[in-house]
């Protein structure tokens, strides 16, 4: 009994074909499939991608439900074409126990817009000193495999070494927020010509690169899996390329905003100077860094795109630069930004986008039933994207509770038309189903 027939979808950008969905799985892919009473969805001109998987999302619940909740954040995720997100651990209370990760996981199940995979904190209270109960979180119903103190760096080399070693027992991965704390005290933006002119404390590239180099060496020494969050500099790319050439088990992500935006926006942008909408951690870097990150994502040195969706209420951004919160929302614009930065530039085709935004992040996070090619037998986690349109970004229409997007008023390509989660549409005609 077929539930859905999708007509004329260009699977991974290829020739049009029909997709039959049944019992949460892709039953058949071919041309001219018979409907047999199933609902039909006309995907003429749309690109079919595997459901996107985000390794790095801040859903803010528990603790900052004014900025985002699991329900609102996963609605935003579905509208962005995601079928799975990893919820970062820097909530209040911190997700450093089985209880908190199970709560977040359950909230995700109840909301039902996409799969929520909680990330566990590496250290108790994100304090960088004592390991959180990593094994308990791994064994919990949430089945945590990704551990991160994101927002803070696990800067103590011994704690980092122990964490890397410890999670081997349950095939976990440490996702490092690479930021040497002493080199970035009070840091406000990328350290460079712009920060020098603007009189803002600089966040030097070396503070990221030094930690990445150290952690690659540590991961190699103990034979563990290491993932680097939001890589932002050309130097980091060089180090990762070298570490990967050794065959070490290291992966990395880049955010959409680091693929498109640069630090000169802090000085001069359509929304004025010193507008904290551009304040983010790690900071926006230079054009040379953007070019290096794009090249690294294209050649696989950087494995995947992760949004670092970081919602903040208006009052935390409508301030002077120094007082503003760091972070940008990104779930609802991620695919469009990747389209502009990577596809329109010829660096990736749609199969490449599927690899960097679905297959690889699912593998890194050990997410079962996600990140699989859209072929018969796979779970029907699918995203249908119209690459032909181009529109001005209107945050008023976002499902996220927050509005801190750096793309307001900017024109971006493409539109997510439909998202299917295990055979059930979560988004149809660009709206929540």
């Amino acid at each position, binding site marked *: 009994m077929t539930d859905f027939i999708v007509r004329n979808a260009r699977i991974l950008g290829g020739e049009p074909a029909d997709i039959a969905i049944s019992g949460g799985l892709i039953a058949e892919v071919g041309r001219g499939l018979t409907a047999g009473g199933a609902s039909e969805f006309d995907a003429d001109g749309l690109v079919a991608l595997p459901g996107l998987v985000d390794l790095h999302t801040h859903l803010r619940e528990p603790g900052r439900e004014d900025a985002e909740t699991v329900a609102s954040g996963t609605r935003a995720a579905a509208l962005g074409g995601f079928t799975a997100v990893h919820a970062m651990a820097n909530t209040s209370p911190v997700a450093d126990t089985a209880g908190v990760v199970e709560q977040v996981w359950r909230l995700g199940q109840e909301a039902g817009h996409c799969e929520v995979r909680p990330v566990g904190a590496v250290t108790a209270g994100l304090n960088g000193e004592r390991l959180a109960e990593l094994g308990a979180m791994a064994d919990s119903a949430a089945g945590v495999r990704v551990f991160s103190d994101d927002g803070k760096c696990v800067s103590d080399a011994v704690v980092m070494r122990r964490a890397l070693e410890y999670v081997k027992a349950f095939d976990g991965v440490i996702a490092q927020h690479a930021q040497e704390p002493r080199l970035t005290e009070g840091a406000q933006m990328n350290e460079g010509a712009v920060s*020098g*002119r603007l009189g*803002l404390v600089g966040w030097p590239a070396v503070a990221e690169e030094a930690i990445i180099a150290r952690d690659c060496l540590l991961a190699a020494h103990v034979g563990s899996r290491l993932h680097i969050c939001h890589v932002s500099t050309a130097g980091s790319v060089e180090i990762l390329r070298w570490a990967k050439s050794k065959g070490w088990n290291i992966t990395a992500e880049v955010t959409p905003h680091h693929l498109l935006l640069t630090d000169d926006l802090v000085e001069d942008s359509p929304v*004025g100077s010193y507008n904290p909408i551009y304040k983010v951690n790690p900071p926006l870097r230079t054009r040379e860094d953007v070019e290096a990150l794009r090249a690294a994502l294209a050649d696989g040195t950087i494995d995947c795109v992760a949004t670092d969706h970081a919602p903040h209420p208006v009052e935390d951004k409508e301030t002077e630069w*120094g007082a503003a919160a760091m972070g940008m929302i990104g779930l609802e614009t991620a695919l469009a930004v990747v389209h502009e930065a990577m596809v329109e530039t010829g660096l990736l085709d749609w199969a490449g986008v599927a690899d960097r935004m679905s297959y690889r992040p699912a593998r890194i996070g050990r997410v079962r039933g996600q990140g699989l090619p859209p072929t018969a037998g796979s779970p029907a986690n699918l995203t249908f994207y119209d690459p032909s349109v181009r529109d001005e970004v209107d945050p008023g229409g976002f499902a996220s509770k927050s509005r801190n997007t750096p793309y307001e008023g900017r024109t971006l390509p493409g539109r997510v038309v439909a998202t299917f989660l295990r055979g059930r549409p979560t988004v149809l005609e660009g709206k929540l189903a």
Partner: protein
Amino acid sequence: MKRHLISAGDLTRQDALLILDTADELARVSDRSIKKLPTLRGRTVVNLFFEDSTRTRISFEAAAKRLSADVINFSAKGSSVSKGESLKDTALTLQAMGADAVVIRHSASGAPHRLATWVDGSVVNAGDGTHEHPTQALLDAFTMRRRLGALDGRRITIVGDVLHSRVARSNVLLLNTLGAQVTLVAPPTLLPVTVDSWPCEVSYDLDAVLPKSDVIMMLRVQTERMNASYFPSAREYSRRYGLDRDRLAKMADDAIVMHPGPMNRGVEIAAEVADSARSTIVEQVANGVTIRMAVLYLLLGGETQ
């Protein structure tokens, strides 16, 4: 001229010369027994000071009052700001009161830019964090011009904590606009790492630069920088970068010594240098009122309305 004065970089050469020439005319008023002009009668100037700076606030207040403006002093201490009111809400309050100009001093770089997006009146930057202090640069240029004549081709050396100095940033931009050649002298730790992108020369050797300079401008060095390892000790700083009597003797005969104040006597500048005939430090204070009169006059279009 633009509606706001937030960065010295906002000023064209023509703007800067207009301000300096206007200040020359206004200086004559300051020499009269009755110092007041009626030009800004009925206009409201708000001094919005989030950082304590009695010197700068008094200077702006005197300037506005000599032009007959109504002056409201809004200091963050003891006000709603200390109870957690945001800059935006403060701005909206001032907007509702009908401020024609807001003079802002704030510890955050860029606060005047943000303020300018929330109020209709002119915003004058009276010092924002480690970014800029454009009226200080204007009064410095005014002082130099009175002592030395036109600044084209003049060699100006700025010595000290450039990294954290809003005075240095504004001076580099304005002096460059006015055709002067600027050299920064500082320990490398107290220069931005990208200083080579600035329109000026850089040296680590004060003694080599001294004899070639028409102006030596000393910046205040905060001794707490010592604890953050910017330099080893106040003594060592003073030996390498301080202006003492021996160094004064190496300067050209007509060269002048400037300091934006407040000074650390005995650290960046020796007492006898600060008090010497070469020093313009007291003149700078007097010229501050005059230049701020010129700025308010030009921004608020005093002669019309």
